[in-house]
């Protein structure tokens, strides 16, 4: 995204000059850019955004925690997103999520101890006709069954070995 990369460039430019140069409207694009680069937003990065935009670190923290997009912890190697949109819900997403939790041994918003998988529940991946749907990284799996989920995860485990 051009606009976001220019925000990051401008943040660096601001740092060099040692003053706040960006408007408050740049806070969210900056956080998005940071998360795109590092996978999450660290405490230090929140301070940097605050310095670059001239608002308090607590205000930036408030923004980062208000929006569900931002993660404040590093994610696992593979992000498993279970769709809990309405169509998926009525077609059994809960059972799929339960099977995933059991298979991975973690709850939603946690990461496996080997750092391989993080589990997230999302509202609508937008492929309702493929419900229930699970997305792993950028790959979408449709009409997933609680039984089938193990096989899908195993392909990622094999890859890691």
């Amino acid at each position: 995204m051009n606009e976001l990369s220019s925000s990051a460039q401008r943040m660096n430019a601001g740092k060099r000059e040692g003053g706040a140069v960006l408007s408050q409207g740049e806070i969210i694009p900056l956080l998005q850019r940071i998360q795109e680069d590092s996978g999450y937003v660290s405490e230090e990065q929140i301070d940097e955004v605050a310095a670059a935009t001239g608002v308090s670190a607590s205000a930036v923290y408030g923004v980062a925690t208000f929006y569900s997009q931002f993660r404040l912890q590093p994610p696992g190697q593979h992000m498993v997103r279970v769709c809990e949109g309405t169509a998926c819900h009525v077609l059994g997403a809960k059972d799929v999520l339960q099977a995933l939790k059991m298979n991975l041994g973690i709850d939603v918003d946690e990461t496996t101890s080997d750092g391989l998988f993080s589990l997230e529940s999302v509202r609508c991946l937008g492929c309702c006709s493929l419900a229930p749907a699970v997305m792993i990284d950028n790959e979408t799996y449709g009409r997933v069954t609680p039984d089938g989920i193990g096989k899908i995860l195993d392909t990622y485990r094999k890859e890691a070995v």
Partner: protein
Amino acid sequence: MSDIREIRVGLATCGIAAGAQRVYEALASSLKESGLDIPIRRVGCVGMCYSEPLVDVVMANDAVTTYGNVTPEDVPRVVTEHVIGGQIVEGLCVSTESFLSRQVRIVLENCGRIDPESIDAYREQGGYAGLENMLAQMSPQDVIEMMTSSGLRGRGGGGFPTGLKWSLTEREPGAEKYMICNADEGDPGAFMDRSVLEGDPHRVLEGMAIAAYAIGAAHGIVYVRAEYPLAIARLERAILDARAAGFLGEDILGSNFSFDIKIKAGAGAFVCGEETALIASIEGRRGTPRRRPPYPSQSGLWEKPTCINNVETLANVPWIIRHSAEAFAAYGVGKSRGTKVFALAGKIKHSGLIEVPMGMSIGEIVFDIGGGILDDRPLKAVQMGGPSGGCIPAELADTPVDYEELKKTGAIVGSGGMIVLDDSTCMVDIARFFLDFTQKESCGKCTFCRIGTKRMLETLTKICDGEGSPEDLDALVDLGEKVKANSLCGLGQTAPNPVLTTARYFRDEYNAHLVDKACPAKVCKSLLRFEIDPATCKDCKLCVKDCPTGAITQGDGKYQSIDPETCVQCGRCYQVCPFGAIAIETGKVNVT
């Protein structure tokens, strides 16, 4: 073979999820191998999600053959038999007749038909002609007057007259005004706006430019969900192309009118669909709504007059300018004119994206266009409007899609989510599902929304767990009315709707949970018992292997038995049993 003009592959998010990218690649290499020079178009969503991936073979005379559920392995057959041999591959061909014949496509007229990344393709369909004609012939007042007489109303769910909204912003003094396109589609189970942005992005830009001219704005912003990366990419491309062609930027087409558009990616907050919260988000703050007045038309983004329209609303605008207000108003009933796009999903055969004239009944949509209920089960209800909407029971299936008529049922037209429910859906569970959503998405500003939805969710969870008492239902409805009355924005004012409509139409089902401790649809796990029929059980022990709590043990003979105390109702045994020996029971155990 020479008669084939082009081949289209549906490559919107849903198509890609179904594997359309691999089909596209297989088709490209297969055509190349055969030495054929036929253009393959990457198009947006045609709407038939139930048959994705879709491939259209288009003849020079515009005749289209549609292939559905295409796999990369099917591609060589299509190329050899149809493209080279001229014979339609019968088994693979899908009929579009029943799905498309009753639809009227205004917003979606180009979706799935043109390459969304080509401005020329849009212009060939008459795109930007509306903007050109308007700049040459119409004053801002003429445009507003045209919108008013067309009867176009806000398609995001509110139904506010578009012409009136524009005139309110136009009459505000000040040189600096903003035109914002609300593409923060947050309703779970709805993807209308995404499909338009992915399938026909220029249409939305043209609509924005027309609106900006009418209200006198030089700056435009599309506020789009970050979860829609493909829509963002196509919009970015479209903005660059529109600028290069002179439809955006300084002095558009030599008219002295200047307007440009930026994209702002939302960051995941349902409340940002609310105008004042959306503005706060663009300004880099937490997306909390504020008290109105002043309305955004008076003091919006950066305290300047601002007009915010939804994607679908704006996508209607170029069509109205190009055809006429009367042509648009010819569709519809009463005060609801034109068409409405719906994302049809749930327990339905033909799930997908549809556009119907206002006034069509819910039943016609479900049975005539949607092909009826999955497995031919009975229709129980249709959920419209997502977390802000309500459930319309099967007996009210004659209700037309009309802002006023739907409101009478307690539901709303909404932004366009339409989820079909059958007898295996528990209405209490559905109410809890939506409330769980709104409770989590409440920004926390108003006490009734913040705490009221929390208490309502707790009560619903209690009911689903079989721990409710009969007075809970009245308490729930009472609290729901108070949350509606005491919340500042649309989120809180509508959050109780799914609960209130289900309580109104499905009171028996609530009572079954409360009094009989039964879930008639067999969905609420705590109210279910898993039992093995000794006569059907073949003692294969598959269930024993899969049971996570060791609740299944050897019975007095060659069969297995489930200990209700240890069982956690996960349902694994029911899924793995190859003999159907496991029954799900609900309600109190009859003690003899």
